[in-house]
């Protein structure tokens, strides 16, 4: 019960982060905000799959899938940090 609350809260807060970062990017056009926003979209998907994995489908192991999504999300942000920020 407590666990589904924590997992749900993780998914909700990460979605808020993604929304705020992408909204800030729309206003300011600062590219780092775009990469951060996309990263948090991925982390939100990661947390939603976590919720599915632990609560909805406890018998199915989705750990590889959700970690793969998290890795893609972090790679997107790292790409932006390395290629798209001035010095």
């Amino acid at each position: 019960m407590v666990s589904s609350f924590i997992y749900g809260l993780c998914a909700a807060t990460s979605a808020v982060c993604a929304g705020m970062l992408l909204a800030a990017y729309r206003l300011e056009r600062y590219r780092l905000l775009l990469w951060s926003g996309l990263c948090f979209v991925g982390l939100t998907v990661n947390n939603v799959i976590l919720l599915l994995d632990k609560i909805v489908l406890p018998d199915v192991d989705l750990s590889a899938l959700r970690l793969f999504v998290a890795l893609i999300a972090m790679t997107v942000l790292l790409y932006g940090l390395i290629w798209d920020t001035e010095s």
Partner: protein
Amino acid sequence: MMNNLSAVLSGAVAMASFATTLFFVKFWRQTSDVFFLLFALAFAIDTVSRAALGLTETSNELEPVFYLLRLAMFALIIIAITLKNRLR
């Protein structure tokens, strides 16, 4: 039980998160902007929580506690953006 693929992915995500932390620390040192410091702190927390999750065999009862760290990470990001917006 963590299989080999999950263990590799888990370590890779922790490493990516650590590298991201270093970038934001660098930006913070260049600009003295607290926004970057909060981002650095958030990704440092993510690095620790992912490494801790990857290294431990947690029970189903204990595991959600690790995700409180992840929750703190997202809260820090929300605080960082809110502060930045209020300052403007």
